[in-house]
C-alpha cells in the first residue's frame, strides 16, 4: 500500500541529504563486508596451518594426552591403527606422530628440544614446512636425518650435514641418546618453532621410546574441513571398543577455536559500534525530514490518514533508504573484498617477515580473504533491518503529531 514510489519521491526532495545518508550506510556496510571477508580468510588460514602443524582435522590419542601431554600416554598399536584408518579413509592423509622432550647437543653447545617423530612423506604433504626450508632438504627414510629450526641451528652453530646428538630419558628407562645428522633447516618466523622444534622420522623416535609401533597421535587430514565432524564419527566407529580418544579439530585445538570466537566477537562488536553511529545518522536525517514536513503531515492527518499509516509512510522511506544504502554497500563490499580474495593482502611490511603468528598458528604473511556467505548475509540483512528500524522513532514522532498544532507549524 502507498507504494514505495511516494517514499522515493520524499527522499528525492532533499536529494543531497538522502544520498549522503545512503552513502554512509553503503560505506559502513562495505567496510563491514570487507572485514568479514578478511577475517574469514585469516581464520581459514589459521585453522589450516594449525591443523596441519599442530593436530589434524581428526586426531586419535590416548585418553588424557590432550590435557597432560604426558609421553607415557601412548597409543600402543599406532602403526596398525594408521594402516586401518588409511585403508578406510582413502581420500584422507593419515599420519602418526611422536612427541619427545630432550636435549640436543652439538660440538658448540646444547639446547632443550621438542623432538617430533613424523612420517616423512605424509607429514610433508600436510605441512607448509617443506616450503619453509632455508637449507637442506625435507626428511626421507633415512632414520638419522633431522630437521631443525633456524634459531636452533644458530644456537648449536650447525649447518646441513653436521652431526648432533639427542639425549632424553623416556618412559622411566635409562637415558638414551641418538646421533642425528642435520638434513634441513626451516624458518617459520615463529620463535618458539624455530628455536625449539626438531623433526625426525617416526621410526627413530619410536626407537628412542623403546616401543615399536607406538605413537602419541594419529592424525587425519582432510581436503574439506567441513567433513571433520563426520570423519570423527567414522573414526570413532572404526575404533569402537578401544580405549582411545577421538577428537575433531575444534576439540583438539580449543585455544585456537576460542581465539577465533573471541576475535570474531571483537570484530562484531567493533562493527556494531560503527553500525550504531551510522544508525544515529539515519535517525537524525529522518527526524529532520519529518520536522520539515510537519505542516504537510498535519494536512495528511486532518484529511483522514490514520496515524499508523502516516508512521508507516515514514518507515517506508526508511526502508527505501535502507535498500539503496545496502545495495551500495553490497557493491562496495564486493569491490573492496574482491582483490583480497583473489590476490590476498601482503602484511609482510607490517609484521616484519614472511610469516606471522596469530592465535598460536603460524602462517604466511600474505593474508587471503575468503567469502563468508553466512556472516555476510547476516550483515546485509542487519543493514536493511537496522536502517529501516532507524526510521521507527521519526515515524512515531510523525504519527503522534497533533494535527492542529502541525497545521499551525510554519
Amino acid at each position, binding site marked *: 500500500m502507498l507504494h514505495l514510489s*511516494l517514499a522515493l519521491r520524499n527522499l*528525492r526532495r532533499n536529494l543531497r541529504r538522502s544520498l549522503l545518508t545512503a552513502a554512509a550506510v553503503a560505506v559502513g556496510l562495505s567496510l563491514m563486508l570487507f572485514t568479514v571477508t578478511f577475517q574469514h580468510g585469516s581464520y581459514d588460514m589459521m585453522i589450516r596451518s594449525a591443523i596441519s602443524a599442530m593436530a589434524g582435522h581428526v586426531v586419535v590419542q590416548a585418553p588424557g594426552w590432550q590435557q597432560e601431554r604426558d609421553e607415557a600416554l601412548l597409543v600402543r598399536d599406532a602403526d596398525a591403527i594408521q594402516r586401518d584408518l588409511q585403508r578406510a579413509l582413502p581420500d584422507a592423509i593419515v599420519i602418526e606422530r611422536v612427541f619427545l622432550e630432550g636435549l640436543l647437543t652439538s660440538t658448540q653447545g646444547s639446547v632443550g628440544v621438542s623432538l617430533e617423530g613424523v612420517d616423512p612423506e605424509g607429514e610433508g604433504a600436510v605441512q607448509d614446512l617443506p616450503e619453509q626450508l632455508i637449507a637442506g632438504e625435507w626428511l626421507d627414510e633415512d632414520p638419522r636425518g633431522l630437521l631443525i629450526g633456524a634459531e636452533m641451528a644458530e644456537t648449536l652453530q650447525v649447518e646441513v650435514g653436521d652431526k648432533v646428538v639427542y639425549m632424553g630419558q623416556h618412559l622411566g628407562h635409562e637415558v638414551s641418546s641418538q646421533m642425528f645428522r642435520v638434513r634441513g633447516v626451516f624458518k617459520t618466523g615463529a620463535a618458539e618453532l624455530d628455536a625449539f622444534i626438531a623433526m625426525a622420522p617416526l621410526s627413530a623416535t619410536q626407537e628412542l621410546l623403546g616401543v615399536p609401533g607406538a605413537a602419541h597421535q594419529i592424525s587425519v587430514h582432510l581436503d574439506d574441513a567441513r567433513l571433520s565432524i563426520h570423519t570423527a564419527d567414522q573414526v570413532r566407529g572404526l575404533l569402537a571398543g578401544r580405549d582411545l580418544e577421538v577428537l575433531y579439530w575444534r576439540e583438539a585445538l580449543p585455544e585456537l577455536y576460542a581465539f577465533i570466537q573471541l576475535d570474531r566477537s571483537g570484530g562484531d562488536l567493533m562493527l556494531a559500534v560503527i553500525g550504531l553511529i551510522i544508525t544515529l545518522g539515519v535517525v537524525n536525517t529522518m527526524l529532520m525530514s519529518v520536522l520539515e514536513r510537519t505542516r*504537510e503531515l498535519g*494536512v495528511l492527518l486532518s*484529511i*483522514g490518514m*490514520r*496515524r499508523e499509516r502516516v508512521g508507516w509512510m515514514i518507515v517506508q522511506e526508511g526502508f527505501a533508504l535502507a535498500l539503496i544504502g545496502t545495495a551500495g554497500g553490497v557493491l562496495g563490499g564486493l569491490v573492496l573484498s574482491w582483490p583480497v580474495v583473489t590476490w590476498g593482502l601482503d602484511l609482510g611490511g607490517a609484521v616484519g617477515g614472511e610469516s606471522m603468528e596469530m592465535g598460536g598458528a603460524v602462517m604466511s604473511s600474505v593474508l587471503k580473504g575468503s567469502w563468508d556467505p553466512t556472516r555476510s548475509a547476516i550483515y546485509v540483512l542487519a543493514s536493511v533491518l537496522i536502517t529501516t528500524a532507524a526510521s521507527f522513532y521519526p515515524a512515531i514522532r510523525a504519527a503522534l503529531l497533533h494535527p*492542529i498544532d502541525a*497545521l499551525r507549524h510554519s
Partner: protein
Amino acid sequence: MSILSVRALSRTYHQGTQTIRALDGVDFNVDAGEFTALMGPSGSGKTTLLNLIGGLDRPTSGVVEVEGRPLRGLSPGALSDLRLHRIGFVFQSYNLIPVLSAYENTEFVLALQGVPAAERRERAMRTLAAVGLAGMEGRRPSELSGGQQQRVAVARAIAGDPALVLADEPTANLDSHTGAELIELMARLNADQGVTFVFSTHDPKVQEAARRVVRLVDGRIDGDEQRAP
C-alpha cells in the same frame, strides 16, 4: 435530517491563569446541500468551531454529531476514518503534498479510502475537470498558481464524496479576484453536485456568494441568516 448538528458546544483554553472561551455554547445545524459561510472577526472562534466539527479537536463540553453520529465516543482511528470518508477539508494554503501531482494529490484520498485503481483514475480525472483543471493533472503544486492549488485542494476534498466539506478561510491567501473565483467554483459544485460546504471567511465580498451566513462573535452565534442565491 441534519448532516451536522452542533449543540451547546464550548471550548476553553487555559493560558497561565487566563481562561479563554474560544467557543461559548454554540448551537448550529447544517442540512444536506447547504452552502454556509462562517463570518466573524479575528479570534471569534471560526477555526476552533471548524476543528471541533472535523474531529481534529475535542470540545470542553457540548455535542457534535455528523450524520447523526456523535463524535464524542469515537476512537482516534474511527475519527480518522470519519474524516476520510465523510468530511473534506480545505485549508488556507500549503494544503497539498508537494511531491505529488495535481492528479496524485486528488487520487491520494481515494487510495486511502481503498477505491480500486481504475475507478480512482476515472473519479480523480472527473473531479479535476469539474474544478476547471483539465489538462493540468500532471503538474506539481509548485507549477500551479495559488488559485489553481486551492482548486486542487477543493478537488481533493470532494473527490472522496464526503457529506460535508469544511474550508477554513480558503481564500485568505488569494487576491480578491481569484478568491471570488474559488468561492464561485464552490458555489457551482454546491449547486450542480449538491456538495455541502461550510467555510469561514473575513471577506465581506466572499460572503455574498453564500446562501446562509452564520456570524460568530466572541465564541457565540450572533446571527444566522438565509439568503436567496
